[in-house]
């Protein structure tokens, strides 16, 4: 394996691991709620055995809660499966807006830990690029993390998908210029490597307070 291929493989596994850890946390949360519902049902059985009355409405509420969590778990596993299939093709036609939405959903908990969720502005007509879906997801996530960390005070990060001439472009706006100034390590060697793999340009505009990702 050439050095850059090895670095790419390591980066791919790192990103896959980060997302998988977040997804497994969400699944555990679903299981924890189902577990508590089961525990509460057992508590109720003990109450009935002691002669205490039980409301059918209360039981119905527990059943509804379990159904809700099963549906939630199903959504999470579907997203996980979709993410796993991101690696299927080395190159394919990708809807940029769909990738932005998908990463925002997949990493919702990690995003929430960084603050207010970003606003997403994508046009009604899909903007597409022929690229590697998995590494585009990786780069969108990396840029979003950068953007959340560099968010300007009292501003919401906004992700805009648009066309710049013929090239698909993603802008991460609402950032503090100071956080994007030279010397802040942007783009990192890892970000440069992934952008290079996609043939993309990755720039920070500190005057406009935005990170710009231009795809070929």
């Amino acid at each position, binding site marked *: 394996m050439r050095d850059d291929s090895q670095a790419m493989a390591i980066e791919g596994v790192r990103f896959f691991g980060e997302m998988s850890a977040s997804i497994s*946390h969400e699944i555990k949360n679903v299981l*924890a*709620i189902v577990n*508590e519902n089961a*525990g509460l049902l057992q508590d109720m059985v003990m109450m009935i055995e002691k002669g205490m009355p039980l409301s059918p409405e209360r039981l119905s509420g527990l059943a509804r809660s379990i159904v809700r969590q099963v549906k939630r778990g199903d959504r999470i596993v579907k997203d996980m499966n979709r993410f796993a299939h991101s690696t299927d093709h080395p190159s394919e036609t990708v809807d940029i807006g769909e990738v932005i939405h998908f990463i925002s959903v997949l990493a919702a908990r990690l995003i929430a830990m960084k603050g207010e969720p970003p606003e997403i502005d994508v046009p009604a007509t899909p903007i597409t690029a022929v690229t590697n879906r998995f590494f585009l997801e990786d780069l969108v996530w990396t840029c979003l993390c950068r953007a959340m960390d560099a968010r300007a005070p009292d501003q919401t990060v906004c992700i805009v998908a648009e066309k710049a001439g013929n090239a698909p472009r993603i802008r991460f706006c609402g950032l503090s210029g100071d956080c994007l100034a030279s010397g802040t390590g942007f783009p990192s060697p890892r970000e440069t490597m992934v952008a290079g793999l996609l043939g993309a340009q990755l720039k920070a505009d500190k005057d406009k307070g935005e990170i710009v990702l231009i795809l070929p």
Partner: protein
Amino acid sequence: MKERVLLVDDEVEFLEIMAERMRARDMEVTTSTSATEALSLIAAESYDAVIMDFMMPEMDGIQALKTIKEKRPEMQIILLTGHATVQKGVEAMKAGAMDFVEKPADLDALAKKIKKAHHQKAVIVQKQSQDKVIEALRKFGM
């Protein structure tokens, strides 16, 4: 005496059901959906055990744990998480957590840990009172 518990998790359904089951076991339970809100509650009230998720919006569990331990060293913190790795567990214990429990948790096992937390907190509070008395006596040259 009832154990006083602060339960912190951003999963509202989990909080509500867990709190109901704990109250049925004669515990006094306060709930909070964010670490920031929990820190305000802790500043105003005393709890035997704070049970909180590791990954929450605004502030992660380790950061919240360190802040609580700085302000209220007597409070016992049990981290409850879906992300149970040995590394995280060690990190939590080093930061002062009393225990580290994986979700989904067994409430009866957790209740035993809460009783232990209640006892440990009482020992620390008693020690803090004794230290204050010794310090006061020292000031008077005794």
